[in-house]
């Protein structure tokens, strides 16, 4: 049988290789194949051939598609070159347009980042779909309603024992205590959490005891930030910190250090104690009370179960415990998805901060409107400037340019400008984020991800198309005969431009509206009795309800 080099690599080579280089390269590879083959190394010959085909795959060998390069690529490149020259020639106008677009994009970026941040609250937890926060609503009729997302201490045990669908229930509560011994004592906010807390939520232990972060009631965990604050660069594991509890100062041993909690988290703390300490703080009565509330209680459902399984059973369980004190329906326990907490004002605020979803919506709308207004601004300005281009357009048309070509060319201008504005706007946004955070009381953090590049490209293209679409249409619509006669009246409908200006001005009113809206609510639901949280150097901070 006549030997032949492996078929597929051979075909692959013919496919990718530049035809001018193919013959001798293929010949050489074949020659080597036969040489090795005849030397008796059949297997090696095949293997070597395939390997060499792969090794030959270099940029300088690959087939080029010349056809493609000549038409579309060159035209586009040419368009952008001309666009750049036109923009450069009329510097005043260009910088005005650029300024407008840049401001629009900067606002859009800032507000967009803020809105995205608000919307992504708590979404980083991998078990977020199974985590719920419980609330308690006591409704005794005649307006005597007590509705809280802080719950009695006994709920953790109650959920775990009475509801099989609940995998784990954890407590979360914050208190302030004096930390340290001697003169330099600092009042610190700290959390009291269940030891299984880190199994439910996606917070990460940086170092220390990984299996059991809070082994007993004398354990303390710190964030990396606080480990740095209290121990500098020393290893804090095993060291102790004194914390004032009631009248005594107790030493707590640091068992683990966790990574700083992300901003988009409803649950945020820098130091935490185990809720095993509750035994030492509260009496038996408080621990088992049904009408004293302190911590937020979160439940993690088992996989494949739904919260309705728990909700359906709630009243039966409540009645089995409290049948003598309340009637059915008076003592309601409900559950709210973790990701719902940040933007749902219908459930009272517990420890986690709650934003008004309306503000988020309005801010998003303002961001978008500012951007659209910047586009309209560009449109009106360039439509007004279109007279300057009359001769150019006439000349091009005489030389045979079609309308489509002209539109393409003018769109290149606006797209080029849009991308320039995107770049500058992003840079400015990044620069002023700290100032913006200080002024607006937000905590925007910009983190780069690769998909942003794609989003940028799409947004830039869209802005370019929206802003430049109308001018491109009217400019390319000039009639040659008018141009040559010299009666260069701007062609575009005046009514369109006037309409756009009206939109712009009404847009300017919007921030005032938002301001008025902001003033109207003072942040507290009026007409309701506020609960007072008594805090200080004591741990016994129970929300008081008169």
């Amino acid at each position, binding site marked *: 049988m006549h030997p032949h080099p492996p078929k597929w690599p051979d075909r692959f080579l013919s496919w990718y290789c530049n035809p001018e*280089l193919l*013959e*001798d*390269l*293929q*010949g*050489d*590879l*074949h*020659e*080597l194949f*036969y040489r090795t083959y005849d030397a008796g190394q059949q297997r090696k010959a095949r293997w070597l051939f395939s390997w*060499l085909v792969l*090794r*030959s795959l*270099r940029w*300088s*060998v690959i087939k080029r598609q010349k056809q493609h390069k000549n038409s579309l690529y060159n035209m586009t490149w040419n368009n952008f070159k001309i666009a750049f020259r036109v923009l450069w020639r009329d510097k005043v106008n260009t910088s005005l347009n650029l300024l407008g677009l840049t401001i629009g994009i900067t606002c859009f970026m800032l507000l967009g980042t803020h809105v995205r941040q608000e919307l992504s609250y708590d979404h980083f937890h991998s078990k977020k779909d199974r985590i719920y926060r419980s609330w308690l609503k006591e409704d005794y009729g005649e307006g005597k309603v007590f509705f809280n997302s802080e719950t009695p201490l006994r709920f953790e045990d109650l959920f775990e024992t009475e509801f099989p669908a609940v995998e784990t229930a954890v407590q979360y509560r914050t208190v302030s205590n004096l930390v340290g011994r001697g003169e330099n004592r600092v009042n610190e906010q700290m959390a009291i959490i269940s030891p299984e807390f880190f199994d439910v939520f996606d917070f990460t232990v940086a170092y220390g005891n990984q299996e059991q972060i809070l082994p007993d009631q004398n354990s303390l965990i710190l964030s990396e930030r606080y480990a740095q604050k209290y121990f500098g660069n020393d290893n804090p594991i095993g060291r102790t910190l004194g914390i004032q509890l009631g009248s005594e100062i107790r030493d707590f041993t640091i068992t683990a250090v966790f990574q700083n909690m992300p901003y988009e988290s409803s649950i945020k703390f820098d130091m935490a104690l185990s809720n095993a300490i509750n035994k030492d703080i509260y009496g038996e009565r408080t621990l088992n009370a049904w009408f004293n509330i302190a911590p937020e209680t979160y439940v993690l459902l088992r996989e494949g179960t739904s919260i309705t399984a728990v909700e359906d059973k709630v009243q039966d369980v409540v009645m089995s415990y409290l049948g003598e004190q309340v009637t059915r329906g008076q003592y309601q326990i409900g559950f709210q998805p973790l990701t719902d907490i940040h933007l749902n004002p219908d459930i009272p605020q517990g420890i986690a901060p709650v934003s008004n979803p309306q503000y988020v919506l309005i801010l998003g709308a303002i961001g978008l409107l500012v951007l659209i207004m910047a586009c309209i601004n560009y449109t009106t300005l360039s439509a007004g400037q279109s007279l300057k281009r009359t001769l150019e357009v006439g000349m091009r048309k005489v030389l045979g340019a079609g309308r489509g070509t002209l539109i393409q060319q003018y769109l290149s201008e606006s797209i080029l400008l849009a991308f320039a504005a995107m770049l500058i706007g992003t840079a400015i946004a990044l620069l002023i984020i700290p100032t913006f955070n200080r002024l607006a009381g937000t905590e925007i953090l910009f983190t780069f991800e690769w998909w942003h590049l794609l989003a940028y490209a799409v947004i830039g293209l869209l802005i370019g198309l929206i802003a430049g679409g109308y001018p491109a249409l009217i400019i390319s619509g000039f009639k040659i005969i008018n141009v040559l006669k010299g009666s260069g009246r701007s062609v575009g409908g005046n009514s369109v431009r006037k309409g756009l200006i009206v939109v712009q001005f009404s847009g300017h009113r919007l921030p005032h509206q938002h301001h008025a809206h902001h003033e109207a609510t003072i942040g507290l639901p009026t007409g309701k009795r506020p609960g007072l949280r008594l805090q200080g150097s004591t741990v016994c901070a129970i929300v008081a309800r008169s």
Partner: protein
Amino acid sequence: MKGDHIGELEELVLLTVGSLYEQAYAVKIMDEIKEHSNRVIDVTAIHSVLRRLDKKGLVSSEMGGATADRGGRRKRFFKLTKAGRAVLDDTMAMRMNLYKKLPKLTFSSI
């Protein structure tokens, strides 16, 4: 400027092309280099270097006649151009100049 400076492998290939005189095609060059310097160089690397030298104008090439082996495919034979020859001369001269400057004394110590 392009062509003013060539790399070590380029120089080796260029020299071999010159020395093979009219018989220089990639496989042959590879064999020749192996024979003289005991260096095993992938034939694809030789091709790549030859394309580079061609682009720099140091070698020229033309296709040979049809062959019976290698599936009837022709070979591409390379020749030194004047510029290629000049580059080789320059490099050799430069090396000799530097080599001559080695102090004689050091030979005893080496």
